[in-house]
């Protein structure tokens, strides 16, 4: 025993720094959020914590601002991820066929992905500005519109602008992941289909798609989780406006914590967000990966 115990201790030392970080910044905050969600802790209570039972969650059920932010977030996530996926997939298929320039294409496309989202927001804010923006200048010149559009000032165009900015930043990620997947497909598989007289569609359906599925799953799950948590773009571009039309759950949660200083309700909001996200991820997992495993 005297030998085993110190050996165990030494083994733990390897994990100690990483575990400490994880406990401090992930585990404790998650538990703290759970506790907060059952408390009344805000300006009204003088920042004294009172047990609230399920009060905060009852409030959530009746909070139309929360429901609208959930809908907005769902819409944003679905539209931008679908666009990013289609663009990324088509581009990966096209670039894979290139003999030259694959590297250059990848470098160029990697740039939007590595830039800070908050700064990309500033970039699009200017491009879509009603007076000084280049989009309105071009549209006016071609004659599509006769007077400058206030892109960020109207509910629908504001949402489209945010989606556009997100697609511009994130479709390269899908592209890079799927391109890596495509490059791993053995060429003999395609030749085999050619010998059997298969069409391009057959190649895609019976070789490309099955090989690509794990990569598709990886890209989609990352994108969905990140799109659902969208904060920087909305906060900088519209602040959630006009009239709450672009307020996503993260932005509402942030305001609840940091502007309204309602920490108990903020906790409940966040717990609800995580539950919705977990359900979505689980549904996607069982849908996509189970199909993949059956296909094998």
């Amino acid at each position: 025993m005297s030998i085993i115990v110190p050996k165990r201790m030494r083994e733990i030392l390897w994990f100690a720094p990483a575990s400490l970080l994880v406990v401090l910044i992930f585990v404790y905050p998650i538990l703290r959020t759970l506790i907060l969600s059952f408390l009344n802790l805000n300006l009204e209570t003088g920042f004294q914590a009172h047990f609230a039972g399920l009060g905060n969650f009852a409030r959530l059920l009746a909070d139309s601002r929360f429901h609208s932010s959930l809908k907005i977030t769902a819409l944003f996530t679905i539209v931008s991820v679908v666009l990013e996926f289609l663009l990324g997939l088509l581009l990966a298929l096209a670039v894979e066929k290139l003999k030259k320039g694959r590297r250059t294409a990848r470098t160029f496309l990697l740039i939007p992905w590595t830039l800070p989202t908050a700064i990309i927001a500033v970039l699009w804010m200017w491009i879509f500005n009603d007076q000084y923006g280049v989009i309105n200048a071009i549209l006016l010149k071609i004659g599509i519109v006769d007077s400058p559009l206030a892109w960020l000032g109207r509910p629908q165009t504001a949402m489209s602008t945010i989606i556009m900015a997100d697609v511009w930043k994130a479709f390269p990620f899908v592209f890079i992941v799927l391109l890596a997947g495509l490059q791993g497909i053995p060429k003999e598989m395609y030749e085999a289909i050619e010998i059997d007289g298969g069409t391009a569609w057959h190649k895609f359906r019976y070789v490309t798609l099955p090989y690509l599925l794990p990569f598709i799953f990886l890209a989609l799950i990352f994108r969905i989780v990140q799109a659902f948590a969208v904060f920087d773009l909305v906060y900088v571009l519209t602040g959630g406006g006009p009239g709450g039309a672009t307020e996503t759950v993260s932005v509402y949660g942030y305001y609840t914590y940091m502007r309204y200083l309602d920490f108990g309700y903020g906790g409940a909001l966040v717990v609800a967000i995580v539950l919705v996200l977990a359900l979505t991820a689980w549904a996607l997992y069982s849908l996509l990966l189970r199909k993949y495993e059956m296909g094998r």
Partner: protein
Amino acid sequence: MICCAVAAAPLAWYGLSSVKDSLELAQVPPSLLPSSFTLDNYAGLFLRRPFAAYYLNSIVIAALAALLCTSCASLAAYRLARAPKRFRSRVASFLLILAFFPPIVLVFPVYELVRFAGLVNQPWGLIIPYAALNLPFAVWLLTGYMEQIPYELEEAAAIDGLTAFDTYRKIIMPLAIPALTTAFLLVFIFSWNEFMFALTFMNLESSRTVTVGVATLSGAFAYEIPWGLLAAGIVVSTAPLIAAVAVFQKRIVAGLTAGGVKD
């Protein structure tokens, strides 16, 4: 190739706009190519706004976070790569779940912690959270790489009487340099880009990061939007990232696709 142009066009427009003078910037409709050339906007960034401080903050915070994260992750990843498969895959799924938590879940409790530790407006108030936030990704990446380092090397080292830590330091680390570089680079980039925590934890003008500095630049002026400063700010704050992509694109791609390639 059209897509490359689409990716680059908005950035090019900013580069061009950043050297226009204020008269040309106020033109309606805006000019596409600059007819004037001035570096006033860049000068203004550093003279009228505390951009030098922002820049220094970002560099220090991102570099130390990347260093702390990569060091902690590589120690854990090495032992993980040599651990029984069941333990390894359990830790991997635990980390994956953590990585999926949106930042809004963590921001307020971590703010409480940072305030409790007296680190609001201090670089460490962001370095430690950033190192932790990127840890799941770094451990995942490094474990995958270290698994492929042959075990025989360590047996030879053990016969030579090297301790476990020396083996790690003298044999494993040098071999893992490509993966360590990738991890460092990506954690640096993610930390440089982070917005929500930086916005919340750094409320003094002098402790802000570049990303928050540029994003809140227009709010600092009451009556006009300082387009020239914004354009120069975007160029200055993204230049190091664009340079990193140009030089290390292969390493960055390797990092982004590590999870998929392992399958």
